[in-house]
């Protein structure tokens, strides 16, 4: 059994937001528009948040990419009254769009606030529509959605592997954000495979996870910035 996980090297992340754009493109995430964005209705399955310290000219900015953490003990799945979200056998916290009735309890119980709701029916500019991904469902209004580690790519890799009668190899599955990252700060792979890059990196001394004290056991690991930061 696979156990998908992601590693984000904060030393390499430049905060360029290419992952955000790639995710949007891959997963048919519509634009919110300025007014709705101000109300917090913009959807970022992959989001980059910034911490700005100091003021000009002595500014220090840190970037933190935040996808869904795909917790091993997800607080969001157990509160759903209709079981529209669940942790699949490979550890991905998935959303069943056709089952979701839009209660939004999963949204309020997610400590990482990475679940998003469709406040309106999705819409795109006409010229943009030809670029939509045919592999991904365009979510209707009134349901919740979230990052699913590009599950459509995992499925495709599985089909290919099955045809060739083998397991998925390292590098067969690459989510859109990982594929696009120009500084190669993101890694994706099978945490169950002790030789995979992600499972080795997740055991690194630099590795940490967000809000580990909550006991949610996320499968997204961060590598903190390097030693040369010390003594500053």
């Amino acid at each position, binding site marked *: 059994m696979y156990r998908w996980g992601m590693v984000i090297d904060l030393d390499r992340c430049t905060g360029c937001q290419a992952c955000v754009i790639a995710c949007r493109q891959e997963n048919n995430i519509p634009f919110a528009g300025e007014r709705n964005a101000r109300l917090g*209705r913009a959807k970022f399955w992959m989001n980059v948040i910034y911490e700005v310290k100091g003021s000009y000219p002595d500014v220090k900015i840190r970037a933190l990419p935040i996808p869904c953490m795909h917790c091993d003990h997800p607080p969001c799945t157990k509160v759903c009254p209709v079981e529209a979200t669940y942790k699949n056998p490979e550890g991905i916290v998935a959303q069943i769009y056709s089952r979701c009735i839009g209660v939004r309890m999963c949204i309020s119980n997610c400590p*990482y606030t990475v679940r998003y709701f469709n*406040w309106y*029916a999705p819409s795109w500019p006409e010229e943009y529509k030809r670029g939509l991904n045919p592999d991904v469902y365009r979510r209707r209004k009134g349901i919740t959605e979230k990052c699913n580690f590009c599950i459509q790519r995992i499925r495709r890799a599985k089909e290919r592997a099955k045809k060739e009668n083998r397991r998925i190899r390292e590098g067969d599955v690459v989510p859109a954000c990982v594929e696009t990252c120009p500084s190669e700060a993101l890694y994706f792979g099978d945490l169950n495979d002790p030789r995979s890059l992600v499972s080795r990196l997740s055991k690194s001394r630099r590795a940490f996870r*967000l809000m580990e004290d909550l006991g949610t056991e996320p499968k997204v690991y961060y590598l903190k910035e390097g030693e040369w930061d010390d003594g500053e």
Partner: protein
Amino acid sequence: MMENEIIARRHSRILSPLTHAGWPFWVTVIPLALLFLWSFFAFGWQYERGLGVTGMGHPMSWTFYLVNFVFFIGISHAGALVSAVLRITHARWGPPFGRAAEAVTVFALAAGPTNILFDLGRSVRFYWVALHAQFKSPLLWDFTCIMTYFAVSSIFLYVLMVPDIALLRDYLPGRKWLYRPLSLGWAGTEKQWHTLGKVIGFLCIAVIPIAVSVHTVVSWVFGMQTQPMWHSTIFAPYFVTGAIFSGIAVIIIVTIVLRKVYHLEEYLTPYHFNNMGLLLLTFTLLWAYFTFVEHLVVAYGGDSHELVVLWSKLSGRYAPLFWAMVVLCFVIPFPILAFKRNIPGLLISSVCIVIGMWIERFTIIIPSLSEPRLFYARGAYMPTWVEWSMTAGLFSGFTLAFVLFSKFFPVISIWELEKERKETPP
């Protein structure tokens, strides 16, 4: 038959609203009905366009509708607790409040869960909660408890009305089509009274744990979540106390209005209201105690995520609402209820408490959502005309239901007054 005639004549004041409707009735009912219908338009608008027409967003995804939900479910506790407890303890001053309290329960229970319907992204699929039940979800517990409570309290209201409906069946032949089927062939025989007594005894006992369970699980919708300041062990008793508190206040308002409009001064006397005021005073103190404990523990505990929410309530963005709640729920009503339990005093404190308790629900739900653990998702919430319309529609629908109820059924239980009259030596 003759006896019924005498009883009806004796209580003509209770029965006269059933046969007479003057201009005050229409002046009340027409605006309420218009507001109620308007909320249907607002709901249609929201249903057609999506929940985006409200002021909700991310992370403020549970707002006005949830506040109204908790508020109305809270009010619904009045009926069960007040009328059942007073019956079990044979409180002499209880009977005149019973019918009003039971009706408030049923209508509040109709109004409360409707908010969940408004709040759902796909409202027409609400029954999936039963169809695809996921037993770990507090919302399913809610659904179960509320439906049980609604069923039991409707039966409670109805069973306690059967002898009165039989009286009306004989007294108002013009409405036989309504009262004859509802009276279930009540003839007042020895055996029927015996059965009625047994059924009421059972319902009184059954309705109390059900009522307590309802607000317990309503509190767990929040308490079971990991959000700062929701994840509290005293939420269940805190919510139940607040529920009974606001419920009693609503009963007092309703009965004072009925007394004035329908001239029921001889049934609802200052003696009755004094006792009700004492009950309300008890719950004022209980509420203040719970509020104090809840906030002090958080402040002393010093968890940084919880402190952010606490300070936003005590001195931040939500401070005006928080302190308004304290003033309305405690500072104003406490001295009035302690020293001056007359009818105007009770009316003032009850109105304050009802408004204060609505604000309490707001300050419990909204600040926690607006300050989640991660610093990037911060929200401000301002309701739009849709939410205001739905809220207005709910309150007017609730009032309208009560007004119409009072035109078809006596608002004070006649047979219980008669029973008491027979038992007390002249």
